[in-house]
């Protein structure tokens, strides 16, 4: 008995080992998010990276995980997440614009809510500040597990700038920013400063000499927007404000931007988003029915953007508004309301990766990409199915067989 236990411990030890060696995951269906779905295929993982997908020769000594009935998908990605730290940490509401702030300072690697995320197959989140101010700071693109420290979890810092230009940041204290007029003015001011700052530095770097411009910490990360190193994600809703967002961030300043939420009839501006090929990131609401729209219909929001021709379409939870582990349910609900299934699955994998400019590493099951993989008991869109295994960077971070996460979730 003791010997058996010892063997079991050894096996478990091997199972949860660091991402070295070779692992082969076999699944009944593999949704690669790279344009195809493979029946009865395998994924070859080596040193935390995907080596091959499809028909795979099992190298000698490789660990083989068999899931003949299951589905494998890329790890899910949520671009609108507030649960990387403590909920009370997300709104620092001193100024209307706060480009000097970032969520990196607030990440809590031991957060229970992150543990729930992996139980729901979510492996990467853009952990952003709240919408209490117009420009609430920079978000951090991070893994939900697989590291004990902030540095180990961060995928890219900064992930994106968070802007909220309507439907929350209205500062009803009577100062500037109570109306769209003040909010737009405040946002423009920071962007103009950032653009000028970038131009000054570019000129200096090109000239190869002369006096360096004064370094301004609060504009360093804003500069990255103009260098197209990371995008701005904008909390917006209602057709007027979605359109205002498009005009300002894309047409006027030309920085990479993600239209987030896009609810309350915002889809009426979807053709304009499609025309400019901008990313839309829908949620936590998945339908528009009685707010700002009065046609008596329950409109699936993502379906509306899709029908208007928006290609880069992703879904979010706005966790904790919808719990992080229910990102896949947001996809299910979008399908219920008219979105094609493959578009919905892409919307929680490769499309958000593209929108946040990390698709070279994450978002699909393709050779060379990070081995962020989720194994599901069946079609992930069916809410009766569940996650069996979550892998980040080749490392198993959640395994149902090892002990189902009985506390599936948590409060504030």
């Amino acid at each position: 008995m003791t010997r058996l236990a010892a063997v079991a411990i050894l096996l478990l030890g091997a199972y949860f080992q660091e991402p070295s060696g070779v692992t082969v995951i076999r699944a009944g269906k593999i949704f690669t998010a790279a344009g195809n779905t493979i029946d009865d295929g395998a994924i070859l993982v080596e040193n935390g990276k995907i080596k091959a997908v499809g028909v795979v020769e099992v190298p000698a000594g490789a660990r083989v995980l068999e899931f003949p009935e299951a589905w494998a998908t890329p790890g899910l990605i949520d671009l609108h997440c507030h649960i990387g730290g403590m909920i009370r940490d997300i709104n620092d509401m001193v100024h209307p614009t706060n480009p000097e702030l970032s969520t990196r300072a607030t990440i809590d690697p031991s957060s229970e809510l992150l543990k729930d995320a992996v139980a729901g197959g979510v492996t990467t989140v853009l952990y952003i500040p709240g919408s209490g101010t117009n420009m609430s700071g920079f978000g951090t693109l991070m893994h939900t597990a697989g590291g004990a420290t902030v540095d180990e979890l961060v995928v890219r810092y900064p992930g994106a700038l968070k802007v909220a230009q309507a439907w929350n940041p209205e500062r009803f204290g009577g100062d500037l920013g109570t109306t769209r007029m003040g909010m737009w003015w405040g946002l423009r001011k920071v962007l103009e400063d950032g653009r000028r700052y970038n131009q000054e530095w570019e000129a200096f770097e090109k000239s190869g000499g002369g006096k360096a411009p004064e370094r301004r910490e609060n504009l360093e990360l804003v500069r990255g927007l103009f260098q197209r190193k990371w995008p701005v994600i904008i909390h917006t809703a209602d057709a007027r404000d979605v359109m205002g967002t498009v005009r300002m961030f894309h047409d006027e300043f030309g920085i990479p931007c993600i239209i987030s939420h896009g609810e309350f009839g915002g889809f009426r501006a979807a053709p304009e988003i499609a025309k400019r090929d901008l990313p839309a990131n829908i949620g936590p609401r998945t339908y528009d029915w009685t707010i700002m729209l009065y046609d008596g219909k329950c409109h699936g929001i993502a379906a509306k953007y899709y029908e208007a021709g928006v290609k880069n379409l992703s879904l979010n939870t706005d966790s904790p508004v919808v719990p992080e582990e229910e990102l896949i349910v947001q996809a299910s609900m979008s399908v219920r309301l008219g979105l094609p299934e493959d578009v919905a699955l892409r919307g929680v994998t490769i499309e958000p990766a593209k929108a946040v400019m990390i698709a070279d590493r994450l978002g699909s099951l393709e050779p060379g990409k990070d081995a962020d993989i989720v194994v599901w008991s069946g079609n992930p869109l069916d809410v009766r199915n569940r996650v069996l295994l979550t892998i980040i960077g080749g490392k198993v971070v959640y395994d149902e067989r090892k002990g189902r996460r009985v506390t599936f979730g948590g409060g504030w």
Partner: protein
Amino acid sequence: MKLAIAVVLLGLQEPPKKEEAKAPAAKPPVYTALVGGDVHTISRGVLRGATVLLKDQKIHRVGQALDLPEGTITIDVTGKRVLPGFVAVQAQGLALASGAGGKVSDSLDPFQEQVKIALACGITSAFIEMGGSGGFFGGGTPSAGSNAVVKMSYGALEGMTLLEPAAHSLQTWVSGGAADRHEIRQSFVKARDLVERERDFERRRAENKLKPNEQPVRAADPFARLLKGELIARISAPDADAIRRALELVNEFRFRCVLMDVVEGWTLPDEIGRARAYVVVTVRNKQHADRRMARPSGSSIEQAAILRKAGVKFAISPITPAVTTGGIAGRDLTGLPIEAAFAVRGGLDEAAALEAITLTAAEICGVDARVGSIEEGKDADLVVLDGDPLDYRTFVDLTFVNGKLLYEKSKSSYFNHLKGKGR
């Protein structure tokens, strides 16, 4: 009259009567048949390709090869699923007119838009209460206000109230102080005495042994009615301590009790089962384990499955126990079967998941003699679904209340532009 009240109170169902020649002025009955669907009776399994024959407001016959009376209106539902209408054990604000107060049945608005939306989502009966809290992030605490079980009989006030009051809140037993608990116990002790005296009176009356001019004894206050099984108590008991405290009272006075908002029921399934308490589960009502506790704690997605194994009867209620149109899908009463599907994710079998939003929910509401399953003689409250009831893509095609077709997807603006499944 008294007999009628007794019938209602005891929850007995009136046997279907044969047409009587006495009433020549009566309109001839209207027969409607839903033909060819897979009928989930809930109480007697699934009948494939069966017919449900309605006679006026009631379910008349259910079976695979029924002879239909002449003039029967037939509706072909081949390939569809026929289920009893869903029953919501908690529905905040539903069917209540604005500024509602006093009795529920005096405050109903049969034309409320939410009632129509409830029908579009398959809900035909709901437990309504005045006051009551809860909302976006889950749960709802039973209020001390009046309550009733109400039908979604859109457009018809008559017969809208199924049962009022439907429950008695004993919330202060768990959330109040020592004085509250003392008062509740005293009320039960007094009521127990009163019920005994009432029984004694009735027995002596039956034996003709009453004293001259002896005044009858009436045990009619809520506590007496709880003891007589005429009323069900509701107590919100999320954690193990609250559950144990509630069960203590149940075990002492042996009354029917519904534990609401139960989160840690999975840690005490046998205790709940022994007390024969009912449970209302919100499958996704999450709570992390309290690591300071030397016992299992927090929520479990497997709660419903664990309770089922222990023989506990439970209903499923969504995170937001209301009909909402705010945009978050699958978390309120408009997606009640989706919450049930999550219980399946946690290991519950599918038939049990459907029972938890139909028959057991009706039992918890005290109206299972009338609704909750497809049985001859029961009210014709039915839904026709375009697919597997627990599939997230399934929509309601038709909803009947009291035999009346009150919702047709194809004629409603809500979901008709969505193709539905299959598709």
